[in-house]
């Protein structure tokens, strides 16, 4: 088995490695779209989202265009989805671009996909691309030995070129399956054991997870997986992570996904967040705190937005529809009650999880340390720390 993510030694000048996304964010969203984003943002937000971008071919067939054109539209949608995620403050996005099993498709389609990938990776390096504008660090992971040499070089070029970006992380799973990824992680641990950097008894769930190449250092764990096209299966994507995150199967085809549909998915996630928190509380490995409380500023922003909308509604109803003052009063009352209810729900959803998760995570971290020290001793804990530090350097390209 080949290395999943190949390690590169980068000798770029410091000036070339500065974060290009430190300026103001322009996600090219309309005013109304940004307001909807602000409203959804008041609830607990996922920090890491995985997308299974399914439905490009079906979309192309429905539209009566070539399959390659469907994939091209799918890439356009990926750029758009990346913009939405940047606007919503999602730190990391992982996308399933090409499975190892996709090599079984016709030579024409595979060739077209590879050519498209090469073209788009080249485009990502350009200054005008959404990747550079938003300060996104790109990682391409998978069994890259299966792809052609020019494409591999292009992948390395884009990883090297975006290495200095730190605002967001885009992980492109190419020539990937989750089983292959887990086997590669075990292989990595096996090599460490052979070199006596680790002992087999040192291996724990968290350590195995750190060796997966979809878990880059400094990146939060996956909170939400979205699969488009209505298929209700994972198709060998993020199997390990799927047991401790939310998964949404949505009916729309990938190129049809709109911001509003995506926001609906996020609201579904927010509804299920207490259940996910409860699940995480019982899990052993200590994670970073995944769901911060809604920011006070966004809550105030939402209230102001609601009041402004209410005033517009009242003026509109009076001037255009000739409503009586009683009717307008009733409308405003209903509107403000709805907003108040939503705010209450969001604060309820976020507050207990914050307290509970923080405590549980602290507790589980302590338990983990105690358990680890008891099982492997201080020397074992030191071995694991050294290995993880080395692993982080490797993964940092």
């Amino acid at each position: 088995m080949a290395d999943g993510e190949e390690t590169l030694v980068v000798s770029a000048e410091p000036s070339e490695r500065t974060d290009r996304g430190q300026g103001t964010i322009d996600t090219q969203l309309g005013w109304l779209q940004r307001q909807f984003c602000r409203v959804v943002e008041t609830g607990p937000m996922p920090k890491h989202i995985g997308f299974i971008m399914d439905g490009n071919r079906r979309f192309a067939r429905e539209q009566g265009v070539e399959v390659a054109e469907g994939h091209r539209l799918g890439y356009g949608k990926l750029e758009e989805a990346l913009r939405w995620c940047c606007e919503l403050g999602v730190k990391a996005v992982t996308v399933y671009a090409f499975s190892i099993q996709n090599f079984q498709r016709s030579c024409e389609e595979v060739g077209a996909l590879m050519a498209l990938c090469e073209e788009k990776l080249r485009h990502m390096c350009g200054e005008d691309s959404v990747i550079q504008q938003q300060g996104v660090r790109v990682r391409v992971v998978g069994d890259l030995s299966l792809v052609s040499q020019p494409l591999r070089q292009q992948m390395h070029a884009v990883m090297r070129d975006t290495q200095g970006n730190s605002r967001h992380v885009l992980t492109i799973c190419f020539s990937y399956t989750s089983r292959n990824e887990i086997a590669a992680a075990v292989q990595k641990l096996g090599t460490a054991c052979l070199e006596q950097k680790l002992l087999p008894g040192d291996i724990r769930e968290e350590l195995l997870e750190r060796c997966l190449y979809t878990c880059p250092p400094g990146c939060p764990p996956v909170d939400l997986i979205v699969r488009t096209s209505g298929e209700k299966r994972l198709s060998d994507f993020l199997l390990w992570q799927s047991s401790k995150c939310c998964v949404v199967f949505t009916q729309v085809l990938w190129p049809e996904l709109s911001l509003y549909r995506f926001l609906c998915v996020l609201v579904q996630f927010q509804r299920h967040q207490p259940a996910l928190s409860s699940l995480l509380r019982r899990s052993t490995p200590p994670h970073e705190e995944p769901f911060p409380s809604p920011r006070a500023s966004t809550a105030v922003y939402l209230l102001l937005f609601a009041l402004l909308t209410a005033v517009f509604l009242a003026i509109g109803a009076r001037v255009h529809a000739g409503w009586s003052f009683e009717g307008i009063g009733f409308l405003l009352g209903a509107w403000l009650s709805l907003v108040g209810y939503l705010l209450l729900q969001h604060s309820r959803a976020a507050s207990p999880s914050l307290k509970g998760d923080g405590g549980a995570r602290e507790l589980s971290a302590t338990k983990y340390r105690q358990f680890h020290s008891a099982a492997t001793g201080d020397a074992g804990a030191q071995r694991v720390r050294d290995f993880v530090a080395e692993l982080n350097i490797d993964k940092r390209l």
Partner: protein
Amino acid sequence: MMRGVVSFLLWAVRLSLLRGMHTVYLLHMVLSSWYTHAQLLLSCRVASLRRPPSHLGLVIGEGEVRDTHDVLQLAKLINWCIGMGMRRITVCDMNGELAATPRSVHNALRSLNVALLPLEAKLADLSSPDSPLAITIHGEGDVFVLRLITLQTGRDDIVCAARRLCAKVANGELPPNAIDEAVVEQQLLVNSGFPDPELVLQFCPRLLLGGLLPWHCSVTQYSHIGRLCNASQRKLYQALREFEGVVQRHGR
């Protein structure tokens, strides 16, 4: 006079026609409803599924099994599955209570004792910590195996497999480059001897998959059918029929 009689007759004919149509329509509604219901029941009873899943997973969410009544409901569900021809079922309990008390499920299954006849139920060896908890029911040339696992079982199984493989590598029995998917899969114990689950029924929040054997659920179909207390034979049948209609392309 004559005109009045004619109009009365016409009115009577129209009325009787309308009544007749209404009665026929009502009869049709009632009969079709009975027919659908009967067809469903009949098809459930004779297990007319063309392709029942060779391995079924059930994910039981937090708070779904609280008392013996809930355990009995789960046993009923398993009973229906046996009746529909399924012989391998893995139950993933997110709370871990069922796996801790497998005898409660076993007793509930025995108390039903309907579809299991003439199968004889007995508990598998539960003393070995390496083997997953399992209830094996043997019949005449027919074996039904039920496994009870927790949310953590699948991940723990992968970690244990990694430890065993790393021990082999450290002892020089296996080169690290030889570790691939097939080698890892051979080391996994929980699902050994079983095919990968083809269908998982979720009795938990819709967005949680429940962590049932992550390695083995790479192409598994998921179906959410509500709460366990509201589970019915009809819902189960509908989920299975939906599964029958799924066509997997496996990346092609």
